[in-house]
């Protein structure tokens, strides 16, 4: 085994890059002009984690907050929420997805989760040994950076689009570490059916609140989240005391979130430690430098430098600008038009190898 890597010959692009999607999608900060398109996306039954409500006023607030966040300079406070949109250039730049980043979970307040813990208790006389699963209300994730609101048009769920939509955010975070924590988390919805039945909520939260899950979910997404957390038991919840259905639902993912979950699992986020307070869904968590796209990230001085190096494989490529952030998926060797799309303005670029599929290996 040798670490010498030969300069690749000018052979045809490998199969992974032959999908023709290279350069098709563009990830960029959402603009006010995206409002109608976002509203359409919110109305459509899109795949993903929807924190997108088809309410124009709310969407406008969200957009304006994001614009302010991208515009923030040295004065980042942690309150920033960045909203990205995904353009399909094959459809004239139509908006086909959106995702976000909350700079600091629970900004100005605690961000609560349940942490899985296991206690072993032994009775030598009874020859019995229990490994008891308990849930601890904790605010370990306070201040971490949250990946939020992944949302994609189902027509684009199969190709590189979701990869760009999710992982592109990590390049942005890695590019501007002063705006973010070095610990990343992401909440994913747990099991709940269309009628609003949620086994975890019904077994836990409902005992402390006289409201059903949809009402709680709505409260939980607002400023009352902390208040609600504080009304939950402060002592550990003994899982064996929960109804079986609720026990089974712990850490279970709602099928609608399978795609964004798999992408982040592949990035190396851990899904076994934390649970969402309300629905028991998995809250993933990991250290930024250890995430796959960040660890394998390469930085180039300019587009020419990048062009020279990225000669094969499929790459997530992003510029290093804030308000004019652009990220795309390119196949090596890079084409002029790919690089133009990224609008580097002569500045540096970063690239990370893109895996073939959400659970697959690096191409």
């Amino acid at each position: 085994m040798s670490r010498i890597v030969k300069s690749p010959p000018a052979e045809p692009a490998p199969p992974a890059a032959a999908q023709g999607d290279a350069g098709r999608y563009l990830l960029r900060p959402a603009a006010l002009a995206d409002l109608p398109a976002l509203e359409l996306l919110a109305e459509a039954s899109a795949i993903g984690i929807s924190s997108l409500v088809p309410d124009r006023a709310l969407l406008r607030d969200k957009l304006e907050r994001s614009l302010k966040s991208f515009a923030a300079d040295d004065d980042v406070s942690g309150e920033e929420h960045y909203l990205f949109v995904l353009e399909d250039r094959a459809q004239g730049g139509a908006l086909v997805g959106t995702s976000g980043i909350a700079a600091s979970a629970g900004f100005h307040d605690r961000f609560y989760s349940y942490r899985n813990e296991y206690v072993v208790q032994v009775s030598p006389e009874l020859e019995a040994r229990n490994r008891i699963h308990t849930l601890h209300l904790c605010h370990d994730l306070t201040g971490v950076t949250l990946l939020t609101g992944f949302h994609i048009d189902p027509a684009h769920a199969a190709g590189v689009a979701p990869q760009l939509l999710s992982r592109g955010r990590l390049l942005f975070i890695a590019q501007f570490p002063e705006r973010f924590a070095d610990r990343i988390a992401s909440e994913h919805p747990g099991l709940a059916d269309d009628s609003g039945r949620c086994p975890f909520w019904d077994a836990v939260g409902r005992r402390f609140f006289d409201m059903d899950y949809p009402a709680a979910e709505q409260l939980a997404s607002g400023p009352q989240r902390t208040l609600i957390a504080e009304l939950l038991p402060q002592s550990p919840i003994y899982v064996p005391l929960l109804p079986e259905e609720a026990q089974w639902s712990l850490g279970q993912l709602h099928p609608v979130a399978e795609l964004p979950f798999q992408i982040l699992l592949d990035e190396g986020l851990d899904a076994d430690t934390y649970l969402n307070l309300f629905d028991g869904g998995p809250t993933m968590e990991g250290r930024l430098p250890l995430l796959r796209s960040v660890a394998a990230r390469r930085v180039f001085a300019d587009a020419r430098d990048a062009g020279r190096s990225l000669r094969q494989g499929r790459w997530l490529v992003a510029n290093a600008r804030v308000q004019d952030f652009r990220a795309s998926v390119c196949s090596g060797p890079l084409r002029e038009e790919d690089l133009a799309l990224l609008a580097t303005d002569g500045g540096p670029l970063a690239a990370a190898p893109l895996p073939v599929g959400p659970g697959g290996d690096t191409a």
Partner: protein
Amino acid sequence: MSTSLPVAAGAGRVGPEVAWRLRPVSDHDLPRLAPWLPPTADRRLPEPQAAERWWLLETPEGPQACVRLRPAIGRDRLRHWYHVGCVVHAAPSLGLFHPQNTLLLGNDHTGAAELADLAWDPDLDLPEQAAALQHLLRAALLLLARDRAQLGAQLIVELPGLRDEAGRSPFWEGLGRHFYPGEPQEALHRFGPAWRSHVAALLPRQLVYVSFLPEAAQAAIAQVPPACHPLLGVLAAEGLRYGHHITIDEGGPVFEARLDTLPAVLQVRRRNLVEARPRGEWASTTWLVAADEGDEVLALPARGTSPQTLAVPADWAAAGLSGPRWTLPLAV
């Protein structure tokens, strides 16, 4: 089974006035008592030198009730109870106010004296049951007052919890069962009453919210089976109270009191027993009398003639019942 009632210090049978007495259980009583005892009870006679004692209420018709005294519990083997507490979850801004009951495992009554395994003849009428229990308890309290120095400051009585027709405790099924899958009956059979100390090592050590238990388990907390209702009134009348602790296996209530403030204990006096010489009408009531030694308490008609003296009928005095004794009127 009928037993004679010899006077402890004297000889032969005593007069018709004697209603009953308290005395230690002996071997030959066991067949009679066994069916009364709850399944969780200890069925062994205390060792001769043990601090533990086991007493019987004996009437001319035979034994009617029994109780075991443990002078200071929780040392030889740990004893555990749940404390039933309350935590309020309130948010005025949401119009929310939820008092939540909680259970916390602990050894709160360690060092207390215990009157354990209270049992009685279920074939008696309800009023007879209550009377038997009152007699038993009051006689026991007389001995406790006499032997106060050897006892803990607190007195507890554990009551049985609810069980369904199959003998299962809904409280255990709703809580303990999840932490020890074995059969309590089998563990009880194998380890005796100590099984509860063993199983406590497996039970939740942090606060448990009662609302996580099934309805039936919640409803069973601190409840006693109907057959025990006569006992509730007797304990209350003597000043014992449910003090927000329950047993870990059945969720039965634990009654408690400070020994030194119990009315009966405060009423116990060492008095000189003298022969009554009634002038005219002799208003006597029932008194309980015990010697300095031995665990026999006699119930007899007598009259307190001063804080220091108790006048007893001539036939009792003649039978040797005179001089200083520990005394307590039967009536509360």
